[in-house]
């Protein structure tokens, strides 16, 4: 295996620190390491010369005091070889931290992609990243009390202690005025607060404040639900990429149980994942048109999304969204013959409609004018921040979990991964429209090749205290779930990393230097999904260096009301 040779060098270099090596699955390698050289190791792996598309995926913090008497912190690197010659794999660098003083050298000082992950473990588990560029307290809701870390095992999953309202404001740079976008704003379907510091109409600086949609999902999953029920909350991490989340979770649990799910189930999952991708991309195309005031494009995209796609999903799974199709070991509903015919019919119809949409979008002069050379994200920044999905592919990054890690039935179908070099909003639009056409072709192939057989392999009890990763390529990029099983059919630690988590960090980079009018379009161009991102942590980031900002007052809304005229 090629993998081994490449890793030998790494193991040699950090011989003193590596305590243990374990293959969770053939493509997931866990190193138990000393925390001292964590940043160097992560840096070495991300900028590995042979795996040139590698990137930092996430940092898992967990309270393993009941297991090992210590906390654990584990950065994960996705090792990708852009040339496609070597087998790609995930590396988990797990370091144990002292239970009384959980300090570790910050990875973020070397990799900006780790900035958010380390703030997250700091806020939710009370870890102390040393030399982190920004170490201010930034915890869940504004009125969350000091020193209470919800993800620690001694915190009940439903305890919601009251605290004092925090305010730490940051002043706008000189000579600028502040334009708040959000938390409730037409362009953002979800609450999120951007503050643009502007000179005239030009954006000088940006602050982002999120975590409005933070619902404590991981903790509910660890506390109230059993491993079979987590699917339904995983699906509700995000209403748009729900099936991606539940499939990634299923994959993680199936990896732990060591079962290969039936081929038919893999095909069904693949088809549904692609249907979901089509609906999400069309939705996004519509919103993009809407943002530039091109309502007919919006209506067109949403119309073709509604008729073939949503109504198809309704007939296949029983609901337009939140398909509820996954279960550990397979899927819950079968595709009878008439459902397969229905898929093929609708795909045929959709193909024509999408091509028309493509023409409408590309032939609209003003749309092109608004999208071209706006919000440019260069390749290098994309790599540094670990940007994923269509956003990364529009910046020339040749990454796609479906192809690179051969999940589900993607190994059996042919498809292209569209990559554009420009990195602007237009490129992101084109990547997505190309992907819709690819998805249609994947679905058609999958329906044709779908094998007979069972759709579900029953799994009894899960082995306790085993861990694994599960991943899919969602519409916005790689979704990755980490599961550590517990006893009694519960999950001990469940960690989710949604694609927007990585992508949002790069948004300030895209915004700077452009105009206020472009801001909603640029923000929307990464297809942000705050619901995904904020299921457990707050996010607040600024270019390069991180700054904090709690914007409690909403300039546009907070003015005292009600005086009759």
């Amino acid at each position, binding site marked *: 295996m090629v993998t081994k040779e490449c890793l030998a060098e790494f193991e040699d270099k950090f011989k003193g620190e590596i305590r243990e090596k374990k293959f969770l699955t053939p493509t997931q390698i866990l190193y138990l390491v000393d925390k001292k050289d964590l940043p160097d190791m992560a840096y070495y792996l991300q900028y590995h010369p042979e795996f040139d598309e590698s990137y930092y995926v996430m940092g898992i913090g967990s309270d393993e005091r009941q297991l090992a008497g210590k906390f654990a912190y584990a950065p994960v690197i996705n090792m990708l070889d852009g040339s496609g010659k070597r087998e790609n794999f995930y590396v988990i660098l797990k370091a144990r931290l002292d239970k009384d003083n959980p300090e570790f050298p910050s990875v973020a000082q070397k990799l900006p992609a780790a900035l958010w992950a380390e703030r997250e473990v700091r806020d939710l588990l009370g870890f102390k990243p040393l030399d982190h560029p920004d170490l201010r307290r930034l915890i869940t809701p504004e009125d969350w009390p000091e020193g209470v870390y919800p993800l620690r095992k001694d915190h009940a999953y439903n305890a919601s202690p009251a605290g004092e309202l925090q305010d730490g404001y940051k002043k706008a740079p000189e000579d600028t005025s502040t334009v708040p976008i959000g938390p409730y704003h037409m362009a953002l379907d979800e*609450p999120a607060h951007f503050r643009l510091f502007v000179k005239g109409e030009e954006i000088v600086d940006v602050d982002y404040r999120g975590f409005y949609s933070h619902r404590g999902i991981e903790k509910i999953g660890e506390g109230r639900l059993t491993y079979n029920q987590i699917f339904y909350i995983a699906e509700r991490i995000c209403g748009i990429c729900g099936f991606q989340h539940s499939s990634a979770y299923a994959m993680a649990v199936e990896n732990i149980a060591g079962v290969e799910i039936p081929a038919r189930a893999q095909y069904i999952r693949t088809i549904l994942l692609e249907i979901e991708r089509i609906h999400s991309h069309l939705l996004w195309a519509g919103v993009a048109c809407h943002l530039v005031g091109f309502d007919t494009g919006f209506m067109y995209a949403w119309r073709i999304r509604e*008729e073939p796609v949503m109504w198809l999903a309704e007939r296949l799974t029983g609901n337009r969204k939140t398909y509820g199709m996954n279960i550990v070991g397979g899927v819950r509903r079968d595709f009878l013959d008439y459902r397969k015919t229905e898929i093929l019919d609708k795909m045929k119809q959709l193909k024509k409609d999408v091509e028309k949409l493509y023409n409408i979008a590309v032939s609209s002069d003003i749309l092109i004018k608004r999208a071209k050379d706006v919000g440019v994200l260069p390749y290098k920044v994309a790599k540094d921040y670990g940007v994923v999905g269509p956003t990364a592919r529009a910046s020339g990054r040749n990454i796609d979990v479906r192809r690179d890690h051969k999940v589900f039935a993607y190994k059996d179908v042919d498809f292209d991964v569209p990559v554009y070099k420009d990195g602007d909003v237009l490129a992101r639009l084109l990547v997505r429209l190309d992907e819709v056409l690819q998805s249609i072709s994947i679905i058609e192939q999958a329906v044709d090749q779908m094998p007979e057989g069972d759709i579900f392999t029953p799994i009894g009890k899960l082995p306790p205290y085993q861990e694994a990763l599960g991943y899919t390529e969602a519409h916005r990029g790689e979704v990755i779930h980490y599961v550590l099983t517990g006893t009694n059919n519960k999950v001990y630690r469940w960690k989710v990393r949604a694609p927007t988590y990585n992508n949002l960090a790069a948004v300030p980079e895209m915004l700077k230097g452009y105009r206020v009018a472009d801001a909603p379009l640029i923000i929307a161009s990464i297809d942000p999904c705050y619901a995904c991102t904020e299921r457990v942590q707050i996010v607040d980031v600024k270019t390069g260096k991180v700054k904090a900002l709690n914007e409690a007052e909403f300039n546009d809304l907070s003015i005292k009301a009600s005086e009759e005229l």
Partner: protein
Amino acid sequence: MGKAALKSVWVFHVDSGSCNGCDIEVLDMLTPYYDPERFGIKLVGTPRHADALLVTGPMTRQCRRGVQKVYEAMPPKPRIVVAVGSCASSGGIFYDGYPIYRSKDRFGRDRLRSGGVEEVLPVDMYIPGCPPSPEAILFGVAQLLGLKEKKMKGEYYTDKETEFKLPQYPIEERIRLSLRESLKKVIGYFDRDRVLEDFMEIAGEANRAENPKEKLHALVTGYFLQEKDSRLKFSMKFLENEYWRLKDDYENKYVALVETHVQ
């Protein structure tokens, strides 16, 4: 509100920490297939212009203040609040997560019934669903406009009032349950009942025959030729095998077990 208010309702949409599903369905309602503009409903960009507030999501602690401010920014009349989705209606699956806002600690029945937007704002219309489809939202809106009457009413039954009869099946209940369970593997929970029904009909007929095994095989083969759907054919074959396996299994194991036990 006069008559005009019913012909023109401008709505503002607020997300109080929802998963996006309901938000997208609210937006979806605006698209050509459902088009609420027929009834004078328009989505506006600022609460100042809004007559009604559509709230989605389980009301997180972080969102609470924002939602309250939006509510206060609305004109004092008519201030209609619509809770869209199960989360907004009563907290949904997230109801007891640590960042979810609750106005006071609740216990017992209260804990299970309440949650969501009503913790912060008075709600005029609940539209449950996860997510509610655009039609369901339209139905709620149509109620607000006086176009439709509500359909739901509380349902309460006791076992004494209702007639209970254990359903009788042509095959043994325990085998039926086992078959039903294993059918999940082949065709999924949704279609299994109807397939099993067909099978039981055949099996009942076969059981009356002299040689049930052969008769069943003949009947299943007949079904096989008639049915067009390959998956139903497949499951029928599966059921036949499984049926005999379970029967034999029972004969061999349990009867023997009982015998030893009795001894």
